[in-house]
């Protein structure tokens, strides 16, 4: 009989261990994010022009440039995933003229711009075909303060084919797209 009691004691002890712990499962899903925007100084519009020569025989002067726009973005990707920001022109550029885009290195207080992430590519010209200007974007956010967060964009015009240059005015739209690689 005393052995029965002893077993009962042990079983009771074991039972107490089984009830001294309670568990709660917690889960949180982090979503994909892909947002890109342009921060202008005032208006998004940029006006560029080539300077006409004042003396016969001289070349067309250097085109003007504009660096008042900044590109900002936020990205969240899956592990191993990456994105790029591509730019293209919607509309028709003047013949004989190239639209150049220089993207400055990232500045600001955001994260995701070191170790080869979100690097500026060597592409320089905007055409009707989207090309990557910033690549290997993973988790990153630039910050939103104009002039101190993001990638400064400098637009300029270059002569591509002198013979095709015609006088006139053209309006085009530059479109930036953040796309999965």
């Amino acid at each position, binding site marked *: *009989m*005393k052995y029965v*009691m*002893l077993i*009962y*004691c042990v079983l*009771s*002890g074991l*039972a*107490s261990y089984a*009830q*001294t*712990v*309670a*568990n*709660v*499962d*917690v*889960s*949180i*899903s*982090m*979503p*994909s*994010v892909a*947002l*890109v*925007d342009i*921060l202008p100084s005032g208006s998004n519009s940029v006006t560029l022009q080539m300077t006409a020569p004042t003396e016969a025989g001289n070349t067309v002067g250097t085109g003007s440039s504009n660096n008042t726009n900044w590109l*900002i*973005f*936020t*990205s*969240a*990707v*899956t*592990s191993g*995933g990456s994105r790029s920001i591509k730019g293209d022109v919607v509309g028709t550029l003047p013949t004989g003229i190239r639209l150049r885009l220089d993207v400055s290195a990232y500045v600001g207080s*955001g*994260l*995701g711009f070191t170790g080869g992430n979100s690097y500026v590519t060597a592409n320089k010209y905007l055409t009707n075909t989207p090309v990557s200007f910033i690549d290997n974007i993973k*988790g*990153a*956010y*630039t*910050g*939103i303060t104009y002039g101190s*967060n*993001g990638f400064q964009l400098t637009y300029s015009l270059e002569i591509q084919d002198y013979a095709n240059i015609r006088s006139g005015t053209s309006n085009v739209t530059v479109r930036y797209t953040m796309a999965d690689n």
Partner: protein
Amino acid sequence: MKYIIAICIASLSAFAASAQTISINSGTTWSIPSLSSTITKAGKNYEHIETSSASQTLLKVNALLAWSITAHLSATSNWDSSLKLSVQRTGNGTGIAILTGGTTYIQLTSTPQAFFSGLLNLTASRDNIPIQYKIEGLSVMLPVKTYTTTVTYTISGL
């Protein structure tokens, strides 16, 4: 005489065993399938904290005299340490025991930490003790996926 001693030991053992148990009346999970706030402007990171209802989990404690509860993360293989999960006790529930501590958030780690304690249950249960959770450290730097962990409450004492 031996029988009496054995019966006494058995009774005391059973009593002690039943004198410290913890269970969950409701809220064995806290799931956030979609964040309560999204990023609406390019360039920004998350700026909010995910917070559960004030009584997300209702704990039930059976004990005799003095007991304490610890809390820790018992499963962290699918969690990220930058996600800071905290718990707090938002009320006393019902019962006669005197509860102490746990009324401000403590950030959980994989090491058990003192959460709150109680005195003088006198075999009555302290029921429906409300527990609230929050998660800080949300960031787009975290890879996109569902993160899971387990909060383990452990009771000790008498």
